[in-house]
């Protein structure tokens, strides 16, 4: 069965880009435009991985991530942060006790092949860790 990836990004062009790219590589995708919609989609779509933008209206990526890692059901889903601002790294996982670091930070613009390779790796390692438990 195809792995499912949720794309959280408020920019339509980036949604289209990532959707096309990931579908081409055999993944099933769902794109939402902010954290709030992401949260609703999470329960229905049950993704294996999330790509997350930082600055979005309604609910920022930071807030969404904070909610996610506190949720026992979804906290193990690997998250790749996609942002134009490297500085936002500081905003995630500053407090390592209560907030684990996201799987990776990727600075926009992305290199398509590199992102795909990273996603593949993330899915493999998360499968391993699930199997180990």
């Amino acid at each position, binding site marked *: 069965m195809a792995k499912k990836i949720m794309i959280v990004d408020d920019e339509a062009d980036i949604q289209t880009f990532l959707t096309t790219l990931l579908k081409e590589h055999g993944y099933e995708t769902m794109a939402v435009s902010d954290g709030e919609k992401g949260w609703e989609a999470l329960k229905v779509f049950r993704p294996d991985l999330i790509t997350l933008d930082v600055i979005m209206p309604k609910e920022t990526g930071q*807030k969404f991530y904070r909610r996610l890692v506190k949720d026992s059901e979804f906290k193990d889903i690997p998250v790749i942060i996609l942002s134009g601002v490297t500085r936002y790294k500081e905003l995630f996982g500053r407090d390592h006790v209560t907030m684990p670091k996201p799987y990776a930070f990727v600075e926009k613009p*992305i290199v398509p092949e590199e992102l795909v390779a990273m996603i593949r790796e993330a899915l493999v390692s998360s499968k391993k860790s699930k199997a180990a438990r």
Partner: protein
Amino acid sequence: MTPEELITEEFKRSLDRRLLEIIPFNVTIIDRQYRILRANGRFESAFGEWRGKYCYEAYKGRREPCPNCRAMKSFDDGRERVMDEVGLDRKGRQAHYLCHIAPIRIEDGAIKYLLGMSHDITESKDREREYDIFFERVPCYITIIDRDYKIIRANNLFKETFGNPLGEYCYKIYKRRSSRCPRCPAAKSFADHGTHSAEQVGITRKGRTAHYVVTTSPLTRDEEEIQHVIEISTDVTEIKAMEKEMLEAERLAAVGQTVAGLAHSIKNILMGLEGGKYIVSVGLKKNQPEMISQGWEMLERNFDKTTSLVKDFLNFAKGQRPEVRMSDPNALVTEIVDLYKEVAAKAGIELKAELDARVKPAPLDPKGIHTCLTNLVSNAIDACQMSERPDRMVIIRTVEEKGKLVFEVDDNGLGMDCEIKRKIFTTFFTTKGGGGTGLGLLTTRKIVQEHGGIIDVKSRSGKGARFRMELPRKRLRQLLDIGNSPQTENENTPVKESS
């Protein structure tokens, strides 16, 4: 009757008995052997029992005469003396006293007794010491000048920094000037007996520029004509340098932030271009015309974004000078409402103005304020569009409020959480994805600041937002003064070329 005749014998006797008690000093009468022959009650209460004691015993608790006793010299030369002495009072405390020695001649002209009159000056001595400590230890330059502006006293810090000033003119020694400084605060203190201060720049002995804040006060209060003024100066050279460094650091930080923001916007556009390119290439490979045109549209859109980014950025960076003229704030708002009413209505949003009739025309840059209101209103409409509530509304308001002209733009749209609120006035921040350049609010704030005003926002997530621009009338009037200076007029007046 002569005054002498008026004094009765009885009174004379009483005076003889009581004279020593009436004199407001500690009185002793001593002989050549330092013996105290008589003393008054004051002396006794200050120094204790004196009967059978030598003066050095009673005054200082010594067992033998003081070396080089000056009082005894009066026996030989018959002169009066005033001496500053330190003794021990009856409780053993050190006491400063001023002692007046008068030799008493008896009928044959020989001096057999000395009359000593002293009073305690311990308290004023203490005060003098405190004053000296203050004068020398405060980290300030202190000078005292006379009415000719000549320095008659200065503390060591001043001397070390500016050189020995005694008898020199204060303007010469502080600033190497040959005449009095304009707006001299000391002159004001001489004139109105008040305290004044001013910020000054001087030159030290070693040629360093010294920034200092000087406070001048008359040295005496009750005189009709002030004779001396004290100048106390605090050196603020280092603080000035720090302020300058801080401004520079802030400027660099702002530049850095701007560059980082610009890079962020460009990265987002590059991401769009990258995406367009990718989709076109997949479309070509698979021979899918829809994909090709989808990718192509993405490419076009992101090229357009580049154009508008560059345009907005230049607009922001250009820093146009505000063109100030008397404008009617209410008319400006009406203009904006007319302009946006249709756009808003199409999106199902009601746009209306609430005008305060008390608002009078003000000196404004109408184009600038137009830009501000446009930015705020289009943001408000966007915020409403993102909200799902049915009664979406944007209100532009003018308010005249305690010397301030206020513009408010209210919406009941999406609102902002504090994370977003914190970032909205930073360069290139946008929540509109590709829709915004992140320069609108920044430009708005810049224009408001150029008008001497402030802009702030109140908002809660899901509860709409209120942006408020406050322009103090006082600052606006100054704006008009600057705008109407001859220099500006010349710039705007075309120069006729003579043929």
